[in-house]
């Protein structure tokens, strides 16, 4: 039940002091100073697998009846592009492209009824922003991403490992859509202290963990000694200032990180068995794709392997992305049947291997793995963005859609009404399905619909963060779930506080 604003006001009175991170010029404080303890955490770390572009949930997580392509078939007749396959969990079936994930579904909690009644046109960037921050864009303030909130609220798990690490997204770009996304995964008003530690490509290491321009370690350290010597003997009023000291510490920490376990996490090629590394490779080669440019190489899979190694070394929140680009990857607007299969076979084996690895070492008990996308998909001949505000896709039955050629066969429409999300470990139930969707179009949730805000609340609660934790910006509190109203869903978790 939502709390009343009176409760919030009382709450604020006691917590405003701690929730001041965003006040520029103000002190940087620790996590929200709630007097009451937060919920007991069931997970210490989280690997958030982010597959933007809009996964066709009925090809992946929520398969219906296989209805093969037939020229002239109606959209309403297109229910599934491949036969569903059984999984290790009784009663759970997945799309045929996910045989490896099927083998670990006994460890999964699968939510099939993530529903939205928020009409914003099912636009990718808006939906991604909503999924990653909990706020609809424009929020009116710079909304922090989930990772930034976790970093800000919980801090580091290990002193040498950044609390929010982001793997798989380019940094340097002037493409405006990518820059928008860079803000959506960023710290928002929480500032650089909560910013993601960016690892664009796990297979290439991280340049800033190596001395610049081929500088030897010896020169690097001599240079740093010079820096320290000069800073020591600089003007007293600088040396005495807290801000200046914090700046010096950030350089020291940077140097320390070059020798840290974080740096060594990148050495997976020399430290992991070859066959294990191979298990993080995609199960499909570029040449097997309709368009080889939709292949991500080892970048995504090895990003998951790196994420695992970072969590083993004390990372708090690691997000691994299959890098989004319009009409690429999961953003399929033609040949959807075949492309869904191609994409499934790129991500299936690495994700399953991650789950197996974490399970084998026992880390899965206290590590939450999430698989998310920004919205689902439905039948459409054209992109549905811009149509959905009027509610077309959620009531679209496909009667008037004639599939005249094979490239039209597949789930091409943006569908924010319903999608799926998957959780492994971290105190979530195992081998469990939550919610049910209609077997015919529109395939909206017909049992146990779930709100996104409540899934966010559940994720936060699992990590020990109360959904009404607030941080202040511009003189007002911003809650980690909008208005503090997210309610953790007990039915998803095997252990609850």
């Amino acid at each position, binding site marked *: 039940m939502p709390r009343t*604003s009176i409760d919030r006001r009382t709450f604020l009175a006691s917590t405003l002091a701690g929730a*001041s991170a965003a006040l*520029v*010029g*103000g002190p*940087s404080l620790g996590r929200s100073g709630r007097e009451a303890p937060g919920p007991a955490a069931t997970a210490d770390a989280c690997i958030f697998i982010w597959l933007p572009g809009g996964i066709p949930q009925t090809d992946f997580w929520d398969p219906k009846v296989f209805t093969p392509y037939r020229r002239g078939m109606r959209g309403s007749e297109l229910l599934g592009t491949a036969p569903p396959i059984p999984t290790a969990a009784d009663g759970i079936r997945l799309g045929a492209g996910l045989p490896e994930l099927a083998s670990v579904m006994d460890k999964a909690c699968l939510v099939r009824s993530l529903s939205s009644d928020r009409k914003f046109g099912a*636009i990718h*960037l*808006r939906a991604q922003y909503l999924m990653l921050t909990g706020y609809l*864009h*424009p929020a*009116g303030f710079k*909304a922090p991403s989930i990772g930034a909130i976790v970093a800000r609220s919980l801090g580091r798990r290990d002193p040498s490992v950044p609390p929010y690490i982001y793997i798989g997204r380019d940094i*340097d*770009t002037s493409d*405006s859509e990518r*820059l928008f996304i*860079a*803000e*959506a995964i*960023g710290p928002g008003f929480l*500032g*650089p*202290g909560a*910013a993601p*530690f960016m690892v664009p490509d796990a297979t290439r290491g991280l340049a*800033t963990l190596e001395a*610049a*321009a081929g500088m030897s370690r010896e*020169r690097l350290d001599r*240079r740093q000694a*010079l*820096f320290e010597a*000069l*800073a020591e*003997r600089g*003007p007293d*009023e*600088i040396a*005495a200032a*807290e*801000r*200046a*000291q914090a*700046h010096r*510490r*950030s*350089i*020291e*920490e*940077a*140097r320390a990180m070059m020798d840290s376990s974080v740096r060594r996490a990148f050495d997976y090629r020399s430290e992991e068995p070859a066959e294990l590394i191979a298990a993080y490779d995609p199960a499909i080669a570029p040449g097997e794709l309709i368009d080889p440019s939709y292949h991500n190489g080892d970048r995504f899979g090895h990003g998951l392997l790196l994420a695992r190694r970072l969590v083993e070394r004390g990372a708090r929140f690691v997000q691994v992305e299959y890098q989004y680009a*319009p009409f690429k990857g999961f953003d399929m607007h033609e040949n959807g049947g075949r492309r869904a299969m191609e994409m499934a076979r790129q991500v299936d084996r690495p994700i399953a291997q991650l789950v197996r690895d974490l399970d084998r070492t026992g880390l899965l008990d206290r590590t939450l793995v999430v698989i998310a996308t920004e919205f689902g998909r439905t039948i459409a001949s054209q*992109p549905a*963005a*811009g149509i959905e505000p009027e509610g077309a896709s959620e009531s679209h039955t496909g009667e008037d859609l004639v599939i005249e050629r094979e490239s039209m066969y597949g789930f091409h429409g943006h569908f924010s009404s319903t999608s799926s999300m998957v959780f492994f470990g971290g105190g979530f139930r195992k081998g469990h399905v939550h919610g049910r969707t209609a077997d015919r179009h529109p395939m909206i949730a017909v049992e146990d619909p779930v709100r996104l805000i409540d899934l966010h609340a559940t994720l936060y609660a699992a990590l020990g963060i109360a959904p009404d934790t607030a941080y202040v910006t*511009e*003189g*007002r509190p911003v809650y980690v779930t909008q*208005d503090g109203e997210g309610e953790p869903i007990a039915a998803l978790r095997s252990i609850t506080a």
Partner: protein
Amino acid sequence: MVTAGEERYADTVGRSALRGGLPEPIRQTPLLPDHAMKRPPARRSTATAARAVLLIFGGVAIAATTTTPDPAAALVERREELLAGLPRLAPPDDPDLPAWALASPNPIDRFVARRWRDAGLPEADSPPPLCDDSAFVRRVHLDLIGVVPTLAEREAFLADLRPDRRERLVDALLARAADCADHWTPFWEDALASSPVSVNGGMATSGNWQRWVNDAVRDALPYDIFAASIIDPGMPRAKPPERGDANGLEVIAHFIRSANETETLQSAAAVAQVFMGTAMKCGSCHNHFENEEWPQRRVVAFAGLFAERDQEIVRCERRTGRIIPAAFPFDPGEEAAATAPEGAAARRALAARQLVDPRNPRFAPAIVNRLWKRFLGLGLVEPADDFRDDRPASDPDLLAFLADDLMRHGFDLRRTTRLILTSRVYQHVHDPALEDGFDVDEPDAPRWFRSPALRRLTAEQVFDSLQVAMEQELDPALRLFRSGESTGLTRALGRPAARNDVTTARSEDPSIVAGLELLNGAEFAGLIEWGALFDLALAQPAAAEAAALLFRALLSREPQPEELAIAEAWLAPTWSSGAIRAGRAATHAGVEVPPLDEAIAAGSALLWFDGAPREGARRSAGWETGATIGGEGGREVDRDAARHAGAARDGIADGALAPPAASIHRSTPPADRGGRSQHWFIDPQSEVDLGPFDLVVVEVRVDPERPAQQVLFQLNDGGSRDGGWSHRAYLGADLIPWGRAETSSRRALGPLPAPGAWALLTVPASRIGLGARHRSVVGASFDEAGGRAEWGRVFIVRRAAPAALESLRDLAWAIAASPEFMHRR
């Protein structure tokens, strides 16, 4: 036919004429026809309107400038009328004030002294010392134009012994209107959520405000007109909204949007935040949690002014059916009660008028508080975005005075800026023990302003200051805010990757990410890899003097003895005079060009361009190859016999032999191009990397029949700025206006060679901004003005860096990454 490039040039001239004596803005000038973009014609009428407004402020009667009602003029007239009826605020004239305050001509000091005295602070009797001139010159440069001073600027100030030298410096910097505007622009881009594109992934943005803001601030548009122009599309200088196509739907990119309830509320909240320092967003969907000033109905009433009609209260996405009449939230007198007019345009005009009304208790105070915070580090009201009735300013009288003073000086922000910067309180030495802070636990704790608050430079200040320190010149085109790139370093220093939402503050927290970028980032290293500063330093016979130069250039001060000892010891082992001479010779005029053929044979030079673009290269129309002018040239010469050598003089080595006829090229002159001609090529296949010590040598010959008055050579770096063409060197008169004079985008290398003889134009790469941040070269352009010339081959001569360079770079890094450089005090 006039080319697009010519039109652009004409357009610039036209604007200049229209602007009537205002300083010509320095703009990026992509200059080759293929890169030229025609500016929309609307700009001219905007410039005219701006001039009208400025004339009004020059004291010309409103009716004289225009016969049609001008909303801007009407606002000014109204402002003056209303102000005449309001009490004029004055500084305290209490004879018991401390003598130093009574002696100060600056009213701010009296307010501050009175507060100190009333609180019994010891500083009332003995005020904190002033910062020294070195600290002042850095402080005021960073605050006004966003960059550290050059060595020459600093020295000129230190040599000025007049008692009013600080006021003079403030005035001199304020007069650099374009540079001041460049420093302000990122703040307003953040505040207006400016985006380079009008549609992003199917969503309308706020539009691109960079140019508009930059022009408006440079022209000192009165602040009330500035704000009104952003809100009211009927203002003469309002920016036309950008229209875009979002998945087949037309969207309008504008700061104020009201397509639905959310947008309308956000427009209201953004106006409140940006222009009134008032946080009302929280009241947009329920009563404000913690500020009773903002019940939801008050917010919704305000939002009604940004919509077509009165708005309904929607409580957390549930409609209530209660329609709230639109009303401005602060009472600006009789008008507040009036019913809002019909229609969005009329309502926005009303919103703008009431916003800038001198009786609005938040409008002028919010901006003077922002100025105070910008210059002193913390606002009189903190947070600067959270003015509220129950939280008085640290000195309410001072805030009210500054607001009143601003309004009575035509809302000219330069007035308030000057007032603050010439006060004693602004000039206090930084003292951590006296520094104020802001703690949300004690929001009402007073701030005394006995010391400025230390603050981190913005990403823009860091980049731009390093550019100035390294090159000893400010190239506006290189300023970070003009770059659309978002990099690991800019993000780590707090520059947003994209401006998705309105924001008026950036966090200054240090982070491990920033630490890594400074320590190991290629970008930071690139910023301090090479520059005129190193050139100067390498010319110093004594290592100590070279070290001192770095301190002066980066920190604007002399090193302390211990620092100097450390830095000198660092440089000394590699500091040999031979290496230094090599370094200096490589980058200064008066270069000795080695015999090119020998250098090519030895591998220390290469023939980069043989006079004919290869197949597949992009090239301008109008190449003539193998041609020659007059009767003298054009003979086949034995290539092996050609010896390029001779006494050097300022960029030219005379006595060169003619290149082979096949290598001679020139522009086909168009019928009428005002005596200017150009031919160019871009060929990624011919990409070559230059080092800072390399020389680019070009064969050129001025036509004896119709001699060019200027020959200009451009190199293309393949980048996006200026279409890659921001590396230019010329001989002769300064006729072609591209880039900025005296910078690497337009470098003068001396007089023209004698007409008729082949000569070598020798361009040190570092003199035209190549060899460090920009290394690669993919094309060249050959230009003349006032006559004709012909061109030959382009050679690159490699020169090794002196051993001292590495230790110099390391010292520069240690200073540039230091907490002192990264902060303003």
